[in-house]
């Protein structure tokens, strides 16, 4: 069957030679095109530069995407990020899409670092994998209850105090 609508979204992380990390986030669908670029500065992952380009067929203009996105410059990826970004970018004259874009870009930076911590355990299987997940809880206790792996009834949780 022919599709009536299609949305394509991509987020890419590109570490720069100076140690900073750039994230490109793009959404294109049948009705709109939105792009943002953020630069993060380790180790605190502070957003040091932000750019946006919004081409909506959906809505009229009432504010500048570029002026709006620059409000997140200085924001650090950490506790309360969702509330902070939402407070800066959402609201009646804001842009929920840009809020999501910043949060998803921040998540991508975390995944970029997570990828390298997962790689050493990529070849192990079965019980060893479950034991590795259990050991991971010592460093990341907040994972408990976060997904089926760390949920009730999972072998990973056997013997783990909750």
């Amino acid at each position: 069957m022919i599709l009536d609508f299609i949305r394509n979204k991509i987020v890419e992380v590109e570490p720069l030679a100076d140690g900073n990390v750039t994230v490109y986030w793009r959404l294109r669908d049948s009705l709109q095109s939105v792009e943002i670029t953020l630069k993060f500065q380790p180790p605190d992952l502070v957003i040091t530069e932000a750019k946006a380009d919004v081409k909506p067929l959906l809505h009229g203009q009432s504010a500048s995407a570029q002026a709006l996105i620059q409000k997140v410059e200085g924001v650090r990826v950490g506790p309360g990020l969702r509330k902070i970004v939402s407070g800066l970018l959402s609201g009646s004259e804001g842009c929920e899409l840009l809020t999501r874009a910043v949060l998803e870009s921040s998540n991508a930076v975390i995944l970029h670092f997570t990828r390298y911590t997962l790689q050493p355990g990529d070849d192990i299987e079965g019980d060893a994998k479950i034991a590795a997940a259990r050991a991971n809880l010592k460093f990341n206790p907040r994972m408990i209850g976060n997904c089926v792996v760390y949920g009730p009834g999972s072998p990973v949780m056997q013997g783990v105090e909750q």
Partner: protein
Amino acid sequence: MARAAPSCRAWSSEEELMITLSRSQLVGAELMDGGLVRFNGVQEDHIYGMEIQMDVNIPTGEVVAIKGWMKRYTNPICPRAVEILQNAVGMSLRGADWERKVMREIGRKGCEHFAEIVIECGRCLDQARLAKDLEEALKVEPSLDQHQFVAKWVRDHPEMREDCRVS
């Protein structure tokens, strides 16, 4: 390998370096008979790969059927999340806090990446209807003012969420 540069790329003087993490989400929507829309959603990144097919009642936003495939994951327990996807049946992708409910019931009890796909599909619910109506209107009147059509459609369909007011 060369990539098409986004127009808002901020620091063009710097060299193109290797992409270390890439995530793609693809949502396709088919409007079907009986007031249903069928979503096909895919998410692929360096770490995870999964896909869903989900039928949604358009007026209510209620999920009436869902299937999932977990293709790449990090732990042998992860595929248990496929059956937890059935928690979505009966949930509405409309109304206050629906995204949070999906994340709680599908994400935290199952897999947050499945929840992310369900949520992205839900965000496309009314956009898919609008796109279909716009396409039909353009068949009748190719020189139609698309911005005007969209503005009127949004006014006539208050159930549609306004995601963005900027440009």
